[in-house]
């Protein structure tokens, strides 16, 4: 400080700049507190912004995965309950067939049994046309509104109904008609039609035994599918759980990056307020007097 003169204007300007800086810090802290965010624009923290943008994108994706999984679980749930009814009905038909094999039944009795089998077959075809959100669940990706015609012919296709369930992972949520009910010539509906016609023909012997074998083949196909549907449902449940966990994780990470640390911000604000007041008080003392006040 050899010959650096200080003038009243310099003091005034410096004081003003310093007070402005102090007030600016106060404003930043106030803004953080009132918005609850410490990251309100990219330049606040570019690295944090990368994280925030990625986390926000991933969170949106994860939430959509959850919705996809929920939808898939609904689809599988309806498939599961439908298949259980199919198994139940098929077992009823099997019991009727076994009754028909008995020697104690005459032609009229077999015709009556055949009528019941026909009704079960109709019921099964209508179960096979079960819809979820206006789509036949066994119809694949075809555009029709039924998977099977009234006569039991498959009308859909074997396209997969797929859901995005996790990054890069998909799961087929449908089982197709042919893989569940067999094809049009040897499948469940054809087997039931054969049983009905054999009963009407009053064939108690070998034909009905063959029919029983065919029916059992079809029944085991359905139960296999039931097990498959159950295992897929479980997979979705596990995935959903995992995605739920990662949503929690990502939400807390996002909060860490974006949200203001309240206790810290409040303490900072208090400190800054004290600093600002001290600066004001000091300024009022320094800026007023000059030699004028003391020369008499």
């Amino acid at each position, binding site marked *: 400080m050899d010959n650096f003169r200080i003038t009243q204007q310099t003091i005034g300007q410096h004081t003003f700049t310093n007070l402005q800086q102090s007030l600016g810090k106060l404003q930043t802290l106030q803004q953080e507190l009132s918005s609850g965010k410490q990251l309100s624009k990219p330049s606040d923290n570019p690295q944090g912004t990368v994280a925030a943008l990625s986390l926000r994108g991933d969170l949106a994706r994860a939430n959509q995965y959850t919705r996809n999984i929920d939808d898939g679980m609904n689809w599988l749930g309806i498939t599961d309950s439908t298949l259980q009814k199919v198994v139940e009905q098929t077992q009823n038909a099997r019991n009727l067939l076994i009754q028909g094999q008995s020697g104690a039944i005459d032609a009229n009795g077999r015709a009556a049994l055949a009528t019941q089998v026909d009704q079960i077959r109709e019921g099964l075809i209508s179960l096979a046309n079960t819809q979820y959100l206006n789509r036949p669940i066994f119809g694949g*990706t075809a555009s029709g509104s039924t998977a099977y015609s009234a006569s039991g012919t498959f009308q859909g296709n074997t*396209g997969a109904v797929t859901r995005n369930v996790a990054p890069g992972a998909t799961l087929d949520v449908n089982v197709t008609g042919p893989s569940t009910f067999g094809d049009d010539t040897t499948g469940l509906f054809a087997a039931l039609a054969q049983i009905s016609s054999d009963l009407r023909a009053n064939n108690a012997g070998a034909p009905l035994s063959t029919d029983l074998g065919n029916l059992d083949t079809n029944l085991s196909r359905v139960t296999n599918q039931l097990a498959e549907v159950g295992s897929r449902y479980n997979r979705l449940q596990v995935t959903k759980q995992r995605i739920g966990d990662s949503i929690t994780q990502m939400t807390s990470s996002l909060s860490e990056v974006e949200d203001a640390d309240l206790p810290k911000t409040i303490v900072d604000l208090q400190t800054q307020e004290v600093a600002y007041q001290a600066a004001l008080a000091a300024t009022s003392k320094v800026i007023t007097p000059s030699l004028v006040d003391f020369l008499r």
Partner: protein
Amino acid sequence: MSSDFGALQLALSSLYANRRGLDTVGQNISNANTAGYSRQRVDFVANSGPKVPATFATWDGSGAGVSVTDVSRTRDLYLEIRSYIEHGASGSMGQTKSALSSVEGLFNEPSDNGIQKQLSDFWSSWDAVANTPNDAGSRAQLLQRADTLASTFNTASTNLDKLRTQAISTLGADVADVNSMAQGVANLNVEIQGASVSGLAHNDLLDQRDLLVSKLSDHLNVTIRQGPNETVDVLVNGTALVSNDHAYALKLDNSGATPVVRWDATGYPASVSAGAMGGLLNVANSVIPRYQSGLDAIATNLVSTVNGALTPITGSIATGGQDLSAAGTLQFGLALNGTTYGNVSVTGADWSGATGAATLQAALQSAINTATGATNAVVATVTGGNGSPLHVSLAGANATDLVNVATVPNNVGLATLLGNTAVGLDGVGGRSFFTGTSALNLALSGQVSGNPSAVGAAMASSGTNDSHVALAMAGLGDSATGPDQLYKTYIVALGVEAQNTNQRVSMQDATTQSVDSSRQSQAGVNLDEEMINMTSFQQAYSASARYLTAIDSVLDALINRTGLVGR
């Protein structure tokens, strides 16, 4: 031998000089808060006796009082010039900082309503369509979100352009300001020259002129060159803006793609690199265009990503040791630019072997030509065959042609061959989703706008309830080369640049302030100092008056009381 009356002159010179000192103190105090005022100082010189020897006129006195040689301004030219440079840098960076801050505000990231969020919503909508491809509601929502996304891009682009227009109009106002200030400097130069030559007081004119030059340095990069008679020339990168009494006007040339500041007289571009004008030129010609083209790149990436997953009418049959003689008749409905040409059929043939592909290509092209007439506007390209997958693609002859292909029901041949083409609920493929070549004209394609069932969610080969295209589309949000990633990079680059600029501005402002302080320290008025000066001048004046009294009484004694001896 000094004269007794000479002492009276000595006292008088002291009275004059100290009065002058007091006047200067008064002027300094009056202008303590005047912008650009330089503290003035009275230069006293002690008068010596005559230095030329003369006969009988030897001088043995102690001096002949004091005289005021000059009232000088205390200024440091080096600090002035440094101040021009620093003010120029501050002005330029300040403009960049405020432009970047506006750009940041415009994108409003990270938030729940920025482009990032809308992109996420857009991809999620594809998942919703994939879940219920037969539901018009989810398709309508997809179109709605896509439309919002497109118009957000449009708005962002328009706002960027507004920022640029604003910068250019501010630049125009700045040019006018600079011209009038330059004229002011030239006028003052004339007055200063006159005053200087005639020896009149002109410190205050100098102050006014220096203040104008300092203000000029806020607007553009200026340096000064001292001219004769205390005039200065003001130079912009070596070219004179003010030369003595003449000011050379600048003009803003906004006729080209980028605004240029030119010399009005010659039309040559002026090298404006700093100050508010330099900053505004940088904003209008570099900063905003950079972010504009970045945004355009994201928009065109979005268009190509989405359309690329939808539009191409191509298909292939994976074949090993193929005998495609059983592929059946290829048949499809063809429309070009909205005109339907009915069905195109190619009768089944043996398309295997080295010539098979060529046969199919010729047959396809000929069938298409027959359907569309002689215009030959749809081009079929067939590659592969002879053991490798047969690949067919259809395209319009012009890049803007829109080719639509509809499946003919139960046509296995086409379904297999064009199996990966995205088709809508109506079975029509080949529609684009977005159109546009920049963020400004990004829009929903007219082929899907207002027509939810036209959105291609299914693969042609799999029935209209298929959703594999939509599923794949939903996954594009995670693509490392997709628009989301580009946008993230874009925003982060913006954040880094804005942060760097803010830091540089703080540093520059500190530098500028420190130079200003140094300048103030030289040229500013310190009231304490003036009070001390005032006291010393006042006391010197009183003392001189007392000295005058003393001499007076000496003379009184000499005149009135001597020579009375013997009376």
